[in-house]
Protein backbone atom coordinates (compact mmCIF):
# COMPACT_ATOMS: atom_id res chain seq x y z
CA UNK A 1 0.00 0.00 0.00
CA UNK A 2 1.10 3.52 -0.44
CA UNK A 3 -0.26 5.30 2.60
CA UNK A 4 -1.05 4.71 6.25
CA UNK A 5 -1.17 1.17 7.50
CA UNK A 6 -4.87 1.41 8.12
CA UNK A 7 -5.39 2.10 4.44
CA UNK A 8 -3.80 -1.16 3.43
CA UNK A 9 -5.68 -4.39 3.37
CA UNK A 10 -4.34 -6.59 6.09
CA UNK A 11 -7.22 -9.04 6.13
CA UNK A 12 -6.10 -12.39 7.29
CA UNK A 13 -5.64 -14.59 4.28
CA UNK A 14 -8.14 -17.41 4.55
CA UNK A 15 -6.73 -19.62 1.83
CA UNK A 16 -5.47 -22.17 4.27
CA UNK A 17 -7.82 -21.50 7.12
CA UNK A 18 -9.71 -24.75 7.50
CA UNK A 19 -12.21 -25.34 10.28
CA UNK A 20 -13.14 -28.64 11.89
CA UNK A 21 -15.28 -29.51 8.88
CA UNK A 22 -12.27 -29.27 6.63
CA UNK A 23 -13.85 -26.38 4.72
CA UNK A 24 -12.52 -22.86 4.62
CA UNK A 25 -14.49 -20.29 6.59
CA UNK A 26 -14.00 -17.04 4.73
CA UNK A 27 -14.80 -13.68 6.25
CA UNK A 28 -17.30 -11.59 4.25
CA UNK A 29 -15.48 -10.22 1.21
CA UNK A 30 -14.46 -6.55 1.27
CA UNK A 31 -15.86 -4.24 -1.44
CA UNK A 32 -12.56 -4.29 -3.32
CA UNK A 33 -12.41 -8.09 -3.10
CA UNK A 34 -15.92 -8.26 -4.56
CA UNK A 35 -15.05 -5.90 -7.40
CA UNK A 36 -11.91 -7.85 -8.30
CA UNK A 37 -13.85 -11.10 -8.24
CA UNK A 38 -16.58 -9.65 -10.47
CA UNK A 39 -14.04 -8.29 -12.94
CA UNK A 40 -12.22 -11.61 -13.13
CA UNK A 41 -15.48 -13.48 -13.67
CA UNK A 42 -16.46 -11.13 -16.49
CA UNK A 43 -13.08 -11.39 -18.18
CA UNK A 44 -13.14 -15.18 -17.96
CA UNK A 45 -16.67 -15.24 -19.38
CA UNK A 46 -15.51 -12.98 -22.23
CA UNK A 47 -12.59 -15.37 -22.80
CA UNK A 48 -10.18 -12.46 -22.38
CA UNK A 49 -8.26 -14.33 -19.69
CA UNK A 50 -7.58 -18.01 -19.14
CA UNK A 51 -8.23 -18.98 -15.48
CA UNK A 52 -5.38 -21.49 -15.62
CA UNK A 53 -3.06 -18.73 -16.78
CA UNK A 54 -4.11 -16.51 -13.88
CA UNK A 55 -3.29 -19.31 -11.45
CA UNK A 56 0.03 -19.87 -13.21
CA UNK A 57 0.92 -16.18 -13.01
CA UNK A 58 0.29 -16.11 -9.27
CA UNK A 59 2.13 -19.37 -8.70
CA UNK A 60 5.10 -18.14 -10.73
CA UNK A 61 5.63 -14.94 -8.79
CA UNK A 62 4.50 -16.13 -5.38
CA UNK A 63 6.38 -19.41 -5.30
CA UNK A 64 8.79 -19.89 -8.19
CA UNK A 65 10.54 -16.63 -8.95
CA UNK A 66 12.10 -14.99 -5.93
CA UNK A 67 15.21 -13.70 -4.16
CA UNK A 68 16.78 -17.15 -4.29
CA UNK A 69 17.50 -16.41 -7.96
CA UNK A 70 19.37 -13.24 -7.15
CA UNK A 71 21.20 -14.98 -4.33
CA UNK A 72 22.61 -17.52 -6.79
CA UNK A 73 23.86 -14.70 -9.02
CA UNK A 74 25.52 -12.99 -6.05
CA UNK A 75 27.13 -16.17 -4.73
CA UNK A 76 28.54 -16.89 -8.18
CA UNK A 77 29.99 -13.38 -8.37
CA UNK A 78 31.58 -13.84 -4.95
CA UNK A 79 33.30 -17.04 -5.99
CA UNK A 80 34.05 -16.49 -9.68
CA UNK A 81 36.00 -13.29 -10.46
CA UNK A 82 35.43 -13.73 -14.16
CA UNK A 83 31.67 -14.02 -13.66
CA UNK A 84 31.71 -10.95 -11.44
CA UNK A 85 33.48 -8.99 -14.17
CA UNK A 86 30.85 -10.06 -16.71
CA UNK A 87 28.05 -9.26 -14.25
CA UNK A 88 29.24 -5.71 -13.69
CA UNK A 89 29.92 -5.16 -17.40
CA UNK A 90 26.71 -6.63 -18.83
CA UNK A 91 24.37 -7.65 -16.05
CA UNK A 92 21.55 -8.73 -18.37
CA UNK A 93 23.72 -11.26 -20.18
CA UNK A 94 25.48 -12.53 -17.06
CA UNK A 95 22.18 -13.07 -15.25
CA UNK A 96 20.74 -14.78 -18.33
CA UNK A 97 23.47 -17.43 -17.93
CA UNK A 98 21.29 -18.74 -15.09
CA UNK A 99 18.16 -18.53 -17.24
CA UNK A 100 16.84 -15.58 -15.23
CA UNK A 101 15.37 -13.38 -17.93
CA UNK A 102 12.29 -11.56 -19.03
CA UNK A 103 9.58 -9.41 -17.62
CA UNK A 104 10.75 -6.50 -15.44
CA UNK A 105 14.33 -7.63 -15.79
CA UNK A 106 14.83 -7.15 -19.51
CA UNK A 107 17.69 -4.71 -18.98
CA UNK A 108 19.65 -5.16 -15.78
CA UNK A 109 22.32 -3.16 -14.01
CA UNK A 110 24.29 -4.54 -11.06
CA UNK A 111 25.92 -2.10 -8.65
CA UNK A 112 28.62 -3.34 -6.32
CA UNK A 113 28.95 -2.59 -2.62
CA UNK A 114 32.54 -2.11 -1.49
CA UNK A 115 34.23 -0.97 1.71
CA UNK A 116 33.85 2.62 0.45
CA UNK A 117 30.49 2.53 -1.40
CA UNK A 118 27.06 1.38 -0.27
CA UNK A 119 24.28 1.17 -2.86
CA UNK A 120 20.53 1.38 -2.32
CA UNK A 121 17.76 0.90 -4.90
CA UNK A 122 14.39 2.65 -4.96
CA UNK A 123 11.68 3.60 -7.41
CA UNK A 124 10.30 6.92 -6.23
CA UNK A 125 7.69 7.14 -9.01
CA UNK A 126 6.11 3.70 -8.74
CA UNK A 127 7.65 0.34 -7.80
CA UNK A 128 10.09 -0.77 -10.50
CA UNK A 129 11.93 -3.83 -9.25
CA UNK A 130 13.94 -6.64 -10.87
CA UNK A 131 11.39 -9.48 -10.93
CA UNK A 132 13.46 -12.26 -12.53
CA UNK A 133 16.07 -12.11 -9.76
CA UNK A 134 14.02 -10.90 -6.77
CA UNK A 135 10.40 -11.79 -7.53
CA UNK A 136 7.75 -9.23 -6.62
CA UNK A 137 8.64 -6.26 -4.40
CA UNK A 138 7.78 -6.30 -0.70
CA UNK A 139 5.01 -3.97 0.42
CA UNK A 140 7.46 -1.55 2.04
CA UNK A 141 9.35 -1.09 -1.23
CA UNK A 142 6.12 0.10 -2.88
CA UNK A 143 5.09 2.25 0.08
CA UNK A 144 5.22 6.00 0.57
CA UNK A 145 7.62 6.00 3.55
CA UNK A 146 10.36 4.21 1.62
CA UNK A 147 9.79 5.90 -1.72
CA UNK A 148 9.76 9.39 -0.19
CA UNK A 149 12.80 9.04 2.06
CA UNK A 150 15.20 6.69 0.27
CA UNK A 151 16.46 9.55 -1.92
CA UNK A 152 16.18 12.24 0.77
CA UNK A 153 17.64 10.50 3.80
CA UNK A 154 19.17 7.18 2.73
CA UNK A 155 21.21 6.87 5.92
CA UNK A 156 18.09 7.32 8.00
CA UNK A 157 16.33 4.65 5.95
CA UNK A 158 19.28 2.28 6.34
CA UNK A 159 19.21 2.88 10.10
CA UNK A 160 15.53 1.92 10.13
CA UNK A 161 16.56 -1.43 8.65
CA UNK A 162 19.24 -1.72 11.33
CA UNK A 163 22.02 -1.03 8.84
CA UNK A 164 24.69 1.34 10.06
CA UNK A 165 26.84 2.90 7.34
CA UNK A 166 29.92 4.85 8.37
CA UNK A 167 30.21 8.53 7.45
CA UNK A 168 33.33 7.58 5.49
CA UNK A 169 31.30 5.41 3.13
CA UNK A 170 29.64 6.97 0.10
CA UNK A 171 25.95 6.11 -0.09
CA UNK A 172 24.62 5.83 -3.64
CA UNK A 173 20.89 5.74 -4.21
CA UNK A 174 19.62 4.43 -7.56
CA UNK A 175 16.20 5.78 -8.48
CA UNK A 176 14.72 3.39 -11.06
CA UNK A 177 12.93 5.98 -13.17
CA UNK A 178 13.46 4.18 -16.50
CA UNK A 179 13.41 0.58 -17.76
CA UNK A 180 16.73 -0.39 -16.22
CA UNK A 181 16.38 -2.67 -13.22
CA UNK A 182 18.98 -2.53 -10.48
CA UNK A 183 20.41 -5.30 -8.33
CA UNK A 184 22.87 -4.62 -5.53
CA UNK A 185 25.85 -6.94 -5.28
CA UNK A 186 26.38 -7.02 -1.50
CA UNK A 187 29.84 -7.31 0.04
CA UNK A 188 30.86 -10.85 0.80
CA UNK A 189 30.70 -11.20 4.59
CA UNK A 190 33.89 -11.92 6.50
CA UNK A 191 34.33 -15.47 7.76
CA UNK A 192 33.03 -17.07 4.57
CA UNK A 193 36.37 -18.15 3.15
CA UNK A 194 36.12 -21.58 1.60
CA UNK A 195 32.32 -21.74 1.70
CA UNK A 196 30.63 -23.28 -1.32
CA UNK A 197 28.43 -21.28 -3.67
CA UNK A 198 25.26 -22.89 -2.31
CA UNK A 199 26.17 -22.08 1.28
CA UNK A 200 27.04 -18.53 0.32
CA UNK A 201 23.70 -18.09 -1.46
CA UNK A 202 21.98 -18.83 1.86
CA UNK A 203 23.56 -15.67 3.27
CA UNK A 204 22.14 -13.46 0.53
CA UNK A 205 18.65 -12.32 1.43
CA UNK A 206 16.29 -10.12 -0.53
CA UNK A 207 16.90 -6.94 1.45
CA UNK A 208 20.65 -7.14 0.92
CA UNK A 209 20.12 -7.13 -2.85
CA UNK A 210 17.89 -4.04 -2.60
CA UNK A 211 20.67 -2.55 -0.50
CA UNK A 212 18.80 -1.85 2.73
CA UNK A 213 20.79 -4.48 4.63
CA UNK A 214 24.08 -6.34 4.30
CA UNK A 215 24.33 -10.02 3.49
CA UNK A 216 24.05 -12.23 6.56
CA UNK A 217 27.15 -13.37 8.40
CA UNK A 218 27.65 -17.11 8.63
CA UNK A 219 26.28 -18.64 11.84
CA UNK A 220 28.98 -18.75 14.49
CA UNK A 221 30.14 -22.27 15.30
CA UNK A 222 28.81 -23.42 18.70
CA UNK A 223 31.30 -22.95 21.51
CA UNK A 224 32.36 -26.39 22.75
CA UNK A 225 31.39 -27.08 26.32
CA UNK A 226 34.31 -27.69 28.59
CA UNK A 227 34.10 -31.09 30.22
CA UNK A 228 33.75 -30.79 33.99
Amino acid sequence: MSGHDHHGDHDHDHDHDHGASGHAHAAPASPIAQRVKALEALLVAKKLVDPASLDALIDTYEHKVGPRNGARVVARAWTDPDYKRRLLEDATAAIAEFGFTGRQGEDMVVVENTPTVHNLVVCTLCSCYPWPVLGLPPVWYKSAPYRSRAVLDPRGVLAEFGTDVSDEVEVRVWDSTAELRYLVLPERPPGTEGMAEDELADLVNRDSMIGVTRAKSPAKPMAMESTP
Partner: protein
Amino acid sequence: MNGAHDMGGMHGMGPIDTDPNDPLFHAEWERRAFAVTLALGFHGRWNIDTSRHARENRHPLDYLGSSYFELWFKAVEKLALDTGLMTADEVATGTPAALADTPPPNPERVAAILRKGVSAKLPDTVPPRFQVGARVLVREVTTPRHTRVPRYCRGRTGVIDRDHGVYVFPDTHAHGEGVKPQHCYSVRFTGQELWGDTAPARDAIYIDLWDDYLEPAP
Protein backbone atom coordinates in the same frame (compact mmCIF):
# COMPACT_ATOMS: atom_id res chain seq x y z
CA MET B 1 2.05 14.95 -14.10
CA ASN B 2 2.99 16.48 -10.79
CA GLY B 3 1.06 13.93 -8.76
CA ALA B 4 1.22 12.22 -5.40
CA HIS B 5 3.11 9.34 -7.03
CA ASP B 6 6.15 11.60 -7.40
CA MET B 7 7.16 11.09 -3.79
CA GLY B 8 10.91 11.59 -3.68
CA GLY B 9 11.76 14.05 -0.92
CA MET B 10 8.40 14.18 0.85
CA HIS B 11 8.30 14.32 4.63
CA GLY B 12 5.60 13.01 6.93
CA MET B 13 4.94 9.61 5.36
CA GLY B 14 5.72 7.77 8.59
CA PRO B 15 8.00 4.84 9.43
CA ILE B 16 8.88 1.97 7.08
CA ASP B 17 7.44 -1.45 7.88
CA THR B 18 10.72 -3.35 7.66
CA ASP B 19 9.34 -6.75 8.70
CA PRO B 20 11.18 -9.22 6.43
CA ASN B 21 8.33 -11.72 6.83
CA ASP B 22 5.60 -9.39 5.62
CA PRO B 23 3.88 -11.40 2.85
CA LEU B 24 3.83 -10.21 -0.77
CA PHE B 25 0.05 -10.54 -0.86
CA HIS B 26 -2.24 -9.70 2.05
CA ALA B 27 -5.44 -11.09 0.61
CA GLU B 28 -6.57 -13.36 -2.18
CA TRP B 29 -8.03 -10.44 -4.14
CA GLU B 30 -4.54 -8.93 -4.37
CA ARG B 31 -3.29 -12.10 -6.07
CA ARG B 32 -6.17 -12.00 -8.53
CA ALA B 33 -5.80 -8.27 -9.25
CA PHE B 34 -2.11 -8.85 -9.94
CA ALA B 35 -2.74 -11.78 -12.28
CA VAL B 36 -5.64 -10.10 -14.11
CA THR B 37 -3.47 -7.03 -14.73
CA LEU B 38 -0.70 -9.07 -16.30
CA ALA B 39 -3.09 -11.30 -18.24
CA LEU B 40 -5.08 -8.44 -19.77
CA GLY B 41 -1.83 -6.75 -20.72
CA PHE B 42 -1.01 -9.70 -22.99
CA HIS B 43 -3.65 -8.45 -25.43
CA GLY B 44 -1.29 -5.61 -26.33
CA ARG B 45 -3.92 -2.90 -26.10
CA TRP B 46 -1.70 -0.71 -23.92
CA ASN B 47 1.95 -0.47 -22.96
CA ILE B 48 3.70 -0.18 -19.61
CA ASP B 49 3.86 3.61 -19.82
CA THR B 50 0.12 3.91 -20.49
CA SER B 51 -0.41 1.56 -17.60
CA ARG B 52 1.78 3.57 -15.22
CA HIS B 53 -0.05 6.74 -16.16
CA ALA B 54 -3.41 5.06 -15.49
CA ARG B 55 -2.20 4.27 -11.97
CA GLU B 56 -0.74 7.67 -11.16
CA ASN B 57 -3.31 9.89 -12.87
CA ARG B 58 -5.68 10.49 -9.97
CA HIS B 59 -6.36 12.81 -7.04
CA PRO B 60 -3.60 12.58 -4.40
CA LEU B 61 -6.15 11.39 -1.84
CA ASP B 62 -7.12 8.54 -4.13
CA TYR B 63 -3.50 7.66 -4.85
CA LEU B 64 -2.28 7.84 -1.26
CA GLY B 65 -5.44 6.32 0.16
CA SER B 66 -5.37 3.26 -2.08
CA SER B 67 -3.25 0.20 -1.41
CA TYR B 68 -0.88 -0.73 -4.20
CA PHE B 69 -2.98 -3.50 -5.69
CA GLU B 70 -6.07 -1.30 -5.42
CA LEU B 71 -4.28 1.11 -7.74
CA TRP B 72 -3.46 -1.76 -10.08
CA PHE B 73 -7.09 -2.81 -10.09
CA LYS B 74 -8.45 0.68 -10.69
CA ALA B 75 -5.96 1.18 -13.51
CA VAL B 76 -6.59 -2.12 -15.30
CA GLU B 77 -10.33 -1.60 -15.09
CA LYS B 78 -9.98 1.86 -16.66
CA LEU B 79 -7.60 0.61 -19.36
CA ALA B 80 -9.92 -2.25 -20.29
CA LEU B 81 -12.82 0.19 -20.57
CA ASP B 82 -10.85 2.88 -22.42
CA THR B 83 -9.55 0.42 -25.00
CA GLY B 84 -12.88 -1.30 -25.50
CA LEU B 85 -11.73 -4.68 -24.17
CA MET B 86 -14.92 -4.49 -22.15
CA THR B 87 -17.82 -2.06 -21.80
CA ALA B 88 -19.27 -0.24 -18.82
CA ASP B 89 -22.51 -2.07 -19.52
CA GLU B 90 -20.77 -5.44 -19.24
CA VAL B 91 -19.21 -4.37 -15.93
CA ALA B 92 -22.60 -3.22 -14.64
CA THR B 93 -24.42 -6.41 -15.63
CA GLY B 94 -21.55 -8.86 -15.24
CA THR B 95 -22.69 -10.39 -18.52
CA PRO B 96 -20.54 -10.51 -21.67
CA ALA B 97 -22.00 -8.68 -24.66
CA ALA B 98 -19.20 -9.97 -26.88
CA LEU B 99 -16.41 -12.51 -26.64
CA ALA B 100 -12.70 -12.00 -27.26
CA ASP B 101 -11.57 -12.17 -30.90
CA THR B 102 -8.54 -14.25 -30.09
CA PRO B 103 -8.15 -16.77 -27.27
CA PRO B 104 -6.01 -15.64 -24.33
CA PRO B 105 -2.57 -17.25 -23.93
CA ASN B 106 -2.56 -20.54 -22.05
CA PRO B 107 -0.14 -21.18 -19.15
CA GLU B 108 2.65 -22.48 -21.41
CA ARG B 109 2.39 -19.44 -23.66
CA VAL B 110 2.27 -17.16 -20.61
CA ALA B 111 5.48 -18.70 -19.29
CA ALA B 112 7.17 -18.02 -22.61
CA ILE B 113 5.92 -14.42 -22.66
CA LEU B 114 7.24 -13.82 -19.15
CA ARG B 115 10.62 -15.36 -19.94
CA LYS B 116 11.00 -13.21 -23.03
CA GLY B 117 9.81 -9.94 -21.51
CA VAL B 118 9.42 -6.72 -23.46
CA SER B 119 12.61 -4.73 -23.58
CA ALA B 120 12.27 -0.97 -23.97
CA LYS B 121 15.74 -0.90 -25.47
CA LEU B 122 15.88 0.15 -29.12
CA PRO B 123 18.52 -0.27 -31.84
CA ASP B 124 21.39 2.14 -31.40
CA THR B 125 20.46 4.34 -34.36
CA VAL B 126 20.41 7.69 -32.56
CA PRO B 127 23.57 9.45 -31.40
CA PRO B 128 23.78 10.41 -27.71
CA ARG B 129 23.44 14.12 -26.99
CA PHE B 130 25.79 13.79 -24.01
CA GLN B 131 29.00 11.94 -23.24
CA VAL B 132 29.82 10.23 -19.96
CA GLY B 133 31.26 12.86 -17.63
CA ALA B 134 29.28 15.74 -19.14
CA ARG B 135 27.57 18.14 -16.74
CA VAL B 136 23.86 18.37 -17.47
CA LEU B 137 20.98 20.49 -16.23
CA VAL B 138 17.60 18.81 -15.85
CA ARG B 139 15.01 20.83 -17.73
CA GLU B 140 11.81 21.91 -16.04
CA VAL B 141 9.18 19.61 -17.48
CA THR B 142 5.76 20.47 -16.18
CA THR B 143 3.04 18.50 -17.85
CA PRO B 144 -0.29 17.03 -16.81
CA ARG B 145 0.71 14.03 -18.94
CA HIS B 146 2.99 11.12 -18.12
CA THR B 147 6.64 11.88 -17.48
CA ARG B 148 9.45 10.08 -15.67
CA VAL B 149 11.51 13.03 -14.55
CA PRO B 150 10.94 13.39 -10.80
CA ARG B 151 10.24 16.89 -9.49
CA TYR B 152 13.08 16.64 -7.00
CA CYS B 153 15.76 16.77 -9.71
CA ARG B 154 14.26 19.37 -12.05
CA GLY B 155 16.39 22.45 -12.45
CA ARG B 156 19.32 20.64 -10.84
CA THR B 157 22.74 19.88 -12.24
CA GLY B 158 24.29 16.42 -12.43
CA VAL B 159 26.91 14.44 -14.30
CA ILE B 160 26.32 11.71 -16.88
CA ASP B 161 27.52 8.55 -15.12
CA ARG B 162 26.69 5.99 -17.80
CA ASP B 163 24.90 5.83 -21.12
CA HIS B 164 22.37 2.99 -21.09
CA GLY B 165 21.82 3.20 -24.84
CA VAL B 166 18.69 4.07 -26.79
CA TYR B 167 15.31 3.54 -25.11
CA VAL B 168 11.61 4.13 -25.64
CA PHE B 169 10.68 7.63 -24.44
CA PRO B 170 7.81 7.27 -21.95
CA ASP B 171 6.42 10.81 -22.31
CA THR B 172 5.23 10.09 -25.84
CA HIS B 173 4.83 6.32 -25.58
CA ALA B 174 2.31 6.59 -22.73
CA HIS B 175 0.04 8.66 -24.94
CA GLY B 176 0.20 6.64 -28.15
CA GLU B 177 2.60 9.05 -29.81
CA GLY B 178 5.39 6.64 -30.62
CA VAL B 179 8.67 5.62 -29.02
CA LYS B 180 10.73 8.72 -29.92
CA PRO B 181 14.06 6.82 -29.69
CA GLN B 182 16.71 8.55 -27.60
CA HIS B 183 19.49 7.82 -25.18
CA CYS B 184 18.77 7.21 -21.54
CA TYR B 185 21.52 7.88 -19.00
CA SER B 186 22.19 7.33 -15.36
CA VAL B 187 22.84 10.85 -14.08
CA ARG B 188 24.68 11.36 -10.81
CA PHE B 189 23.56 14.16 -8.48
CA THR B 190 25.15 14.97 -5.17
CA GLY B 191 22.80 14.90 -2.20
CA GLN B 192 23.72 18.50 -1.50
CA GLU B 193 22.74 19.58 -5.02
CA LEU B 194 19.30 18.06 -4.49
CA TRP B 195 18.68 18.72 -0.81
CA GLY B 196 20.99 21.54 0.25
CA ASP B 197 23.93 21.93 2.56
CA THR B 198 22.50 19.78 5.34
CA ALA B 199 22.74 16.60 3.24
CA PRO B 200 25.73 14.33 3.96
CA ALA B 201 28.65 15.39 1.77
CA ARG B 202 29.25 11.83 0.56
CA ASP B 203 25.75 10.94 -0.62
CA ALA B 204 24.82 10.74 -4.29
CA ILE B 205 21.58 9.97 -6.08
CA TYR B 206 21.62 8.37 -9.53
CA ILE B 207 18.55 8.97 -11.66
CA ASP B 208 17.81 7.46 -15.09
CA LEU B 209 16.97 10.34 -17.41
CA TRP B 210 16.41 10.65 -21.16
CA ASP B 211 17.98 13.10 -23.61
CA ASP B 212 14.78 15.16 -23.83
CA TYR B 213 14.93 15.91 -20.10
CA LEU B 214 18.45 17.29 -20.23
CA GLU B 215 20.41 20.25 -21.50
CA PRO B 216 24.10 21.10 -21.17
CA ALA B 217 24.83 22.70 -17.80
CA PRO B 218 25.73 26.38 -18.22
